[in-house]
């Protein structure tokens, strides 16, 4: 009974993370299309949600592992996975609140690393894996996308510069719809698999499915696809605004350069077997497409805040993941620990919401009367 409850907690938390992942990363797919009016906002988000859902069914190849090669896989327990998920959800919600795009994958890795560090000490962390699979790609992705989108927009302006603006704008808007759709499909394929991997791991640990060559059950695929699609459909508007208009005011050609070359970079990297963060690539692409036209067109303060958020992702999610594990452990671990953590989170969220309601000033009409 106790193991069943723990399984339900981990599955629900994993689906909650999947929802925040879709919610948080909507901007990667739709921000430039909305900003350049390639698509109306609601239609763009609906298409992104549907393609995320479809994408989740395309491949189940990498649904087996979590933070593989970064932490000692043999030491991962459901309590660590739960604490890691709490850390990732916390960071996703905080960066959404601040309107800053950041990598959900890195948040999950950070959460698991933090929980693992508290649970098993530094020996359970594979430093070289963390450097090679997370830190180097995190630095390389935005720099590469910045350069590629910057060079791409210079070529684009040179090729279409003397054409009538109307047909050119319409053409690049169509290109944005195509590249955005590809990105949404790729996002569903890659990111929903992380949740499928976590739930499959939980089912193996619970004994519901066999440990040797475990197959992802259909209900796991459907629920993960639904959670990420629902999250995408909910739309993280704060981040959409930051990516779509706060970094640069972009035209359709810049939107296509950022998104089209970004999609090409992401899929090329997947082909090589060196996956890059969609968030880092698209954000770098947006800044590159703006800076190539005019350096002063980029609001460097906003770009700097994004960079700070990226640097802080793993430490902050790790700290929260470690804290969640410690509280869970102090509460007795097992099933009781995660329940105590969930109750604590509910209390903190309620207190936060209450504090915001209290601070709301009374309507002016009451004062005037």
């Amino acid at each position, binding site marked *: 009974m106790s193991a069943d409850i723990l399984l339900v907690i981990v599955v629900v938390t994993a689906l909650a993370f999947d929802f925040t992942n879709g919610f948080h990363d909507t901007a990667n797919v739709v921000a430039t299309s909305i900003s350049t009016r390639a698509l109306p906002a609601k239609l763009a988000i609906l298409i992104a949600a549907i393609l995320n859902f479809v994408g989740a069914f395309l491949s189940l190849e990498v649904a087996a592992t979590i933070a593989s090669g970064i932490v000692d896989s043999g030491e991962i327990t459901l309590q660590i996975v739960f604490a890691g998920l709490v850390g990732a959800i916390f960071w996703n919600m905080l960066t959404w609140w601040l309107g800053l795009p950041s990598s959900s994958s890195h948040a999950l890795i950070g959460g698991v690393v933090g929980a693992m560090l508290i649970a098993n000490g530094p020996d359970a962390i594979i430093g070289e894996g963390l450097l090679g699979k997370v830190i180097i790609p995190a630095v390389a992705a935005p720099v590469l*996308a910045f350069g590629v989108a910057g060079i791409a927009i210079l070529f684009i302006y040179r090729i279409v510069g003397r054409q009538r603006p109307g047909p050119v704008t319409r053409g690049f808007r169509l290109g944005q719809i195509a590249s955005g759709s590809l990105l949404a*499909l790729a996002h569903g394929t890659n990111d929903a698999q992380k949740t499928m991997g976590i739930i499959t791991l939980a089912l193996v640990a619970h004994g519901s499915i066999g440990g040797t060559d475990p197959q992802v059950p259909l209900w796991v695929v459907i629920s993960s696809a639904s959670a990420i699609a629902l999250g995408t459909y909910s739309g993280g508007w704060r981040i959409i605004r930051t990516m779509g208009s706060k970094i640069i005011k972009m035209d359709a050609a810049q939107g296509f350069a950022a998104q089209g070359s970004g999609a090409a970079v992401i899929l090329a990297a997947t082909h090589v077997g*060196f996956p890059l963060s969609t968030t880092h690539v698209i954000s770098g692409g947006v800044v590159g497409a703006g800076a190539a036209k005019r350096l002063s067109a980029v609001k460097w303060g906003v770009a700097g805040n994004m960079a700070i958020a990226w640097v802080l992702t793993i430490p902050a999610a790790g700290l929260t993941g470690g804290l969640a594990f410690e509280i869970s452990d102090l509460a007795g671990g097992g099933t009781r620990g995660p329940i105590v953590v969930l109750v604590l989170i509910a209390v903190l969220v309620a207190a936060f919401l209450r504090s915001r309601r209290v601070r709301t000033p009374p309507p002016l009409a009451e004062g005037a009367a």
Partner: protein
Amino acid sequence: MSGAPVPLALSVWGELLEVIVVGAVAGIGLAIAFAFLVRGAAQSSAIRHGEREGSLVLNLALVALTSAICIGAVVFAVYEMVSG
């Protein structure tokens, strides 16, 4: 053949270099191909409406060629996703 394992750091740098080359070629190449597609389509439309002089056939050929490149890129991308 030596069975000595390659240090992880070295293999990471090799993969990174490959990503930079493949990513740059794919990203910039696709943008150039699509820009020529837009240019060909805009010029074809202008020629057809008598707003501009030039060879309609050449512009349509440019549209066909660049469309094939872009569609090929999309098909390859979907294949990459499906094959994992």
